[in-house]
């Protein structure tokens, strides 16, 4: 069964208010084409899940699409400084920052993928994050009595992952660093794959390198060449410095709308 569809149609299936997992790390292989389409569609109330996010979170915050961000770190890396739109939205109270340690996002996704309600984690021993957030709570080891902290499961309604290769059925191969994307696909109710290249139906069957995201976890496949741009995609392209800097110069939603209209 082909799941190949257009970017617009795939993004329209994501309801406002969804818990949305995003693949990649910082400016590396983030699903930027999909995120830009969500902004064009003026989605509202999205709750984003990511270990370390940057431009994709900043863009969705500027577009007014976001209600909450569950993440360990939200910033561009050194060269492009802070995510000013995310920061302003949190400071204005329009976006809720649910700060995790990156590992507690991973633990929360693992809990979801294991089908259990929470995951005990070591660490977080002396952190104000535990008292400040309702997704952390002390938990007692029933065997030894040791107290650990638990993190509540995060089961995204849908995750968007940008891969180098996918077939029309939804089998997708991430080449190079995978970050938390394979886990994300297991933890989520469903996954939408955008791919640099669509391969034939028998591609993976004839290859010794198998897809790392199997078709039955995937609801839609979109052919999105340069789908991580202006960020980087391993084996395909690096960052587009000029496009990132032109985004960083935007100050409001109308300017973003014009910027999005100029992009394919």
């Amino acid at each position, binding site marked *: 069964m082909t799941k190949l569809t257009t970017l617009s149609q795939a993004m329209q299936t994501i309801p406002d208010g969804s818990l949305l997992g995003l693949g990649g790390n910082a400016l590396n292989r983030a699903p930027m084409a999909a995120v830009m389409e969500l902004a064009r569609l003026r989605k509202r109330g999205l709750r984003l899940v990511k270990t370390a996010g940057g431009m994709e979170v900043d863009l969705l915050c500027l577009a007014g699409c976001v209600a909450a961000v569950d993440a*360990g770190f939200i910033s561009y890396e050194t060269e492009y400084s802070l995510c000013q739109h995310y920061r302003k939205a949190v400071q204005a109270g329009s976006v809720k920052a649910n700060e995790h340690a990156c590992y507690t996002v991973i633990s929360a996704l693992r809990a979801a993928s294991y089908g259990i309600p929470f995951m005990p984690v070591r660490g*977080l021993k002396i952190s104000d*994050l535990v008292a400040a957030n309702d997704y952390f709570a002390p938990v007692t080891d029933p065997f030894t009595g040791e107290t650990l902290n638990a993190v509540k499961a995060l089961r995204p309604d849908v995750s968007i992952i940008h891969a180098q290769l996918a077939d029309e059925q939804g089998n997708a191969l991430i080449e190079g660093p995978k970050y938390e994307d394979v886990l994300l696909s297991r933890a989520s109710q469903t996954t939408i794959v955008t791919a640099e290249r669509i391969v034939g139906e028998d591609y993976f069957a004839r290859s010794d390198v198998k897809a790392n995201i199997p078709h039955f976890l995937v609801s839609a496949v979109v052919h999105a060449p340069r789908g991580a741009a202006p960020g980087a995609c391993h084996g395909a392209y*690096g960052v587009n410095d000029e496009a990132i800097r032109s985004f960083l110069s935007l100050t409001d939603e109308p300017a973003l709308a014009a910027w999005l209209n100029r992009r394919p």
Partner: protein
Amino acid sequence: MLRPCDIMTVSMARLIRDGETVFHGVSSHMPMIAVLLAKATHAPNAVHLNIPGGVDPQKPRLQSFTSAGDDLWSPAVAEFPLQEVFDLSMRGGLDVAFLSGVQFDNRGGVNASVIGDYRMPKVRLPGGAGSAVLIPTAKRAIIWRTKHDVRTFTDKLDFTTARGNVSDIVTPLCVFTMYGGELILKSVHPTSSIEEVAQNTGFPIRYITLATTPPPTEEELKKLDEIDPQDYRSLEFR
């Protein structure tokens, strides 16, 4: 000319011991270069762990926009992704984690979360990334911060993102170390002075013996230029 970014990078590299497992994360060009320098000089058997999961990348061609990219993966000898680096730390197997933040107190507390109230912050910071779980579980958490002023080194944090096994803090002025639960001055960089450190630190400076940070050697500077020909170690100072 002695540059604080070279002194800081070299100071971090020297804190790595041969054979140790060492992790750095995103926005971490300076510690990334410090790990590569340590492996090229006194600690060839240190294990370089990072977010893309490339173990011991061989002569990586570094990129300006990331310290978590495929430049660390493609020339690596094995794959060990971020989630497994965290697992390693949780079971006591991570020797060193390099982390940063925005405020630090003299008892090893780190704030990377907010200035002001957590829910209605005056300034929302990027967040502690791995800090809240790595600082208590890594054997040593080494902090670097390119800003050294009384707002950064303060006796009162707005928020405690993490507290635990902070061992050293490297700044453009000096190196602090933890001693008996208290942050004390270990060495002052040759480009600074004890007076400058005291004026820019929001808690009283204490030390046992005061040393000058040994300046980078010719060999260290030569290796730095080989590892980092584009001078990304100075990115945070630009």
